[in-house]
């Protein structure tokens, strides 16, 4: 994790934020809050600190409390630091029917963490999530923007290995490209 990184968007990200704000009618700029929080979470190491939330409030010219209210409501926003790879395993019916318990238990054992915990090297965090619209390719996990589907314990092993070698922070947002 970068230390003492200034909580401020790069100029590219700020330009995208401006473009997002322009998608909503005059005076309705608050609509841009959730999309801009995604930008912030991507830019600020995968989670939203109070400083990050306050910064977003200043970008949108709204009160910090309006940002806190929203961040704490939505499950994709992390209010605590997470590992580079946040493993979000679906545990709802269709995934459970096809073995999500085995996947979760395998990760727990292999990485020696419980749900909600992060490995000591800061590489992985395990999280259980509810249906991600991948029920036909169950069991599955999401890591950043990637869906890993039709999982088996063997596939999982090689996936975790690859992630370790790559050693990169996974993000939901892969590119800053927006339509006109």
């Amino acid at each position, binding site marked *: 994790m970068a230390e003492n990184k200034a909580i401020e968007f790069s100029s590219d990200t700020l330009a995208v934020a401006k473009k997002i704000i322009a*998608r909503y*009618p005059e005076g*309705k700029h*608050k*609509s*841009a*809050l*959730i*999309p801009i*929080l*995604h930008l912030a979470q991507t830019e600020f190491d995968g989670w939203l600190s109070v400083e990050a939330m306050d910064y977003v409030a200043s970008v949108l010219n*709204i009160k910090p409390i*309006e940002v806190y*209210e*929203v961040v704490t*409501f*939505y*499950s*994709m*926003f992390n209010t605590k630091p997470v590992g580079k790879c946040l493993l979000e395993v679906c*545990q*709802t*019916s*269709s995934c*459970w*029917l*096809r073995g999500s*318990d085995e996947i*979760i*238990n395998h990760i727990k054992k292999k990485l020696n963490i419980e*749900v909600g915990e992060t490995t000591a090297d800061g590489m992985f965090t395990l999280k*259980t*999530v*509810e*249906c*991600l*619209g*991948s*029920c*036909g*390719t*169950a069991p599955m996990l*999401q890591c950043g*923007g*990637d*869906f890993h589907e039709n999982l088996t314990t063997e596939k999982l092993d090689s996936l975790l290995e690859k992630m370790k070698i790559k050693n990169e922070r996974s993000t*939901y*947002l*892969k*590119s800053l*490209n*927006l*339509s*006109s």
Partner: protein
Amino acid sequence: MGKKLLLEHINEPGIQSFEVYRKKGGYASVEKALKTMKPDDVTEEVKRSGLRGRGGAGFPTGMKWSFIDKKSGKPRYLVCNADESEPGTFKDRYLMEHIPHILIEGMITSSYALGANTSYIYIRGEYMYVAQILERAIDEAYANGFLGDHILGTDYSLNLYVHVGAGAYICGEETALLESLEGKRGNPRLKPPFPAVAGLYSCPTVVNNVETIAAVVPIVNLGGDEYAKIGVGRSTGTKLISASGHINKPGVYEIELGLPVEEFIFSEEYCGGVWKERRLKAVVAGGSSVPILPAGLILTTAKGEPRLMTYESLADGGFVTGTMLGSGGFIVMDETTNIVQNLFTFTRFYRHESCGQCSPCREGTAWMEKILHRLLQGKGKKTDIDILVNAAKNIEGNTICPLGDAAAWPVAAAIRHFRKEFEEIAESTTEGKKLEIATH
């Protein structure tokens, strides 16, 4: 093989791109509507088609459109509901990922009908990569003159934007979606006023599901009457079914409404039968919220008639012996399935997703989850079953939005049809019989 209206070109290489989509006849509905029809004519065709909302409730789309307040002088909005979070449902993702332009085309034609000049596609945050596919498709549509000012040289202008959410099932409920789109927590609004009068930014708004909007494309192309010839009775047209669970071929299938359930489950064209050569135990036919049915009742109605994939046939028998088509999230369970544990996954889901505004929903879902957990750990009592039934009864109908009902129905139905399994689990309190259940 059944008629395909939405997925006809799914296997065409490059169909994701504007160029190929257009070559295959794409955007014809926009040309036809904008150049030869008045906005109200489009609504009329949709009415004639008999199309019913594909998001779950099945409300007639043309009628919904005709409620939009066109006299207020305020801007009107069309918002596409791409929040798709109902467990067992993944058809909208499939459609948007593979044929993004059919949604863009439907949005243009539908926005024209409603007189909307700005429209949004609200997509769940977890589908970020799909949002990026849509952004690209929208870019292509702008570049080719199908979006922006004076589309195809007409007086009609439309801006279309993708808006991502951030993980909250409740934002699929249309008023919660609008709150979320305004940059707030996704707390459903009290109705009335309905969105048709005061929706996004208090302006007249229509919220429609992805598949509903995509269906407008073939409706305008074929004409409403022609579309209505497909299907049975008031269940017209085709429907995307998301099939998952213990079947040989999970996936998204476009069916003509009216297909027998038995054929859907067992034929090679669709699910290909129950996996591992096991027997069918139960089905949740329309997403997690609808009542579960045991094998006997999903294949035939209580009257002994073959059950069909239609709104009416699936609902035949009411909640005593029937269910609902819902979102078309078709979850199949084989003979080894522990119904109580399956219910636990649903109940945990609703507890997690309750927005917390109404006490019956907030407290009730938590209680039901706790009791089911207790039962599954071998620490329950037989009286817990009646407590569950009561809790469900007390939630139903007593909340601001239908999430409360959606949480209550699966509990009531599982106990109605599989009470014995609940009793067996309640009686298995001895250490030896203790169940291995994962509750991470």
